[in-house]
């Protein structure tokens, strides 16, 4: 499943933009833009999404290249973690009050 909004009919394809706002942080999706190719896409992203020093690094990805989980199977796809509380530290209450745990 590709990203919604991508259309082969458009003269310039759609690119999704991810910006790292500071060192030590992940790239975060900020939006999309149009560009004829990756060289101009990354420049357009710099011009559009970092006008106010919002970023130290930019990623662009062709919208058509993104695969997403199928939302119609949403229930089934994300059901498994529910109930597996032992994956969370807060599950282990007996150690409460013990330091450095």
């Amino acid at each position, binding site marked *: *499943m590709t*990203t*919604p*909004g991508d*259309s082969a*009919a*458009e*003269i*310039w394809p*759609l690119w999704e933009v991810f910006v790292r706002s500071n060192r030590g942080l992940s790239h975060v999706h*900020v*939006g*999309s*833009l*149009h560009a*004829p*190719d990756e060289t*101009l896409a990354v420049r357009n992203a710099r011009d*559009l999404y970092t*006008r*106010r020093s919002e970023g130290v690094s930019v990623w662009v990805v062709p919208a058509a290249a993104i695969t*997403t989980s199928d*939302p*119609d199977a949403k229930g089934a796809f994300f059901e498994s973690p529910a109930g597996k509380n032992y994956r969370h530290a807060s599950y282990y209450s007996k150690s409460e009050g013990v330091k450095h745990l």
Partner: protein
Amino acid sequence: MTSTITPDMSVPAAISVEEQQFNDLLEADSRIEPRDWMPEGYRKSLVRQISQHAHSEIIGMQPESNWITRAPSLKRKAILMAKVQDEAGHGLYLYSAAQTLGATRDDMTDALIAGKARYSSIFNYPTPSWADMGSIGWLVDGAAICNQVPLCRASYGPYGRAMVRICKEESFHQRQGFEILLELMQGTDEQRQMAQDSVNRWYWPALMMFGPPDDDSPNSAQSMVWKIKRHSNDELRQRFVNMLVPQAAVLGVTLPDPDLHFNEETQQWDLGVIDWTEFHEVLAGRGPNNAQRLQRRRDAHDEGQWVREAAAAYARKQSARTEEMAAS
């Protein structure tokens, strides 16, 4: 005709699991995301609203870019350029949000330049004086912010996120407009006259930006149910006027409404009667600048066609070349 399989119309049709999920998300004040199931009406309504909003940003560049080359100081020139550029940016954020609903930029642009899409009527008014840069910032952007801040919580995720970004950037727009007017009001007689004249021209159209009165606003009710819109037109308009009155006093400008008065009972400013005939005239395409605005957008698009094609052709050639090299 009788049939045993005719459904019993007295029982409401059972809604689908998807629709129930959609309703539950709205109920929980959560967000709808691009690939979620959504009612067709919700999708259409959003595409209409977001693309109109985007078009407004793009057409809205024109009345101000009109003054970039004539800005009276280099600082003002830089500020104005940055502001008009922001509007292009806001248009892009919004087109990007609409695109997640399956609308393409090319289609939206075509609808705009063919005169089939709406945009905010306010941009069909001319900007004959520099003070209009002040009034647009203070009144038009002020009204827009009033409208937009609640949209940051719109139920559709990408729209809300675009609005958060836009609202953060808009605060500079309103402030710079206020400062332009303040500077003029503290200047020469001619400058004060320029500012007052401009406020006189923009005040009523700015109030009309909130849309028709609540009892005459066909799309509002459904939008509120869907949590795209969160406050009524009249409610937002009233809040805006309440904010404007003290700001006008700081500026020293008069708001051109002789009936404007403070209502002790409601603690609000009651305004005079809005001339909605003018609003409907401009909306119907008979405003001062409708034709000019569309023509300019169409010209830019048409004159840019060869450039967009060139870049697309170059990209095709480059990727063909890359593939060739990989194959050899």
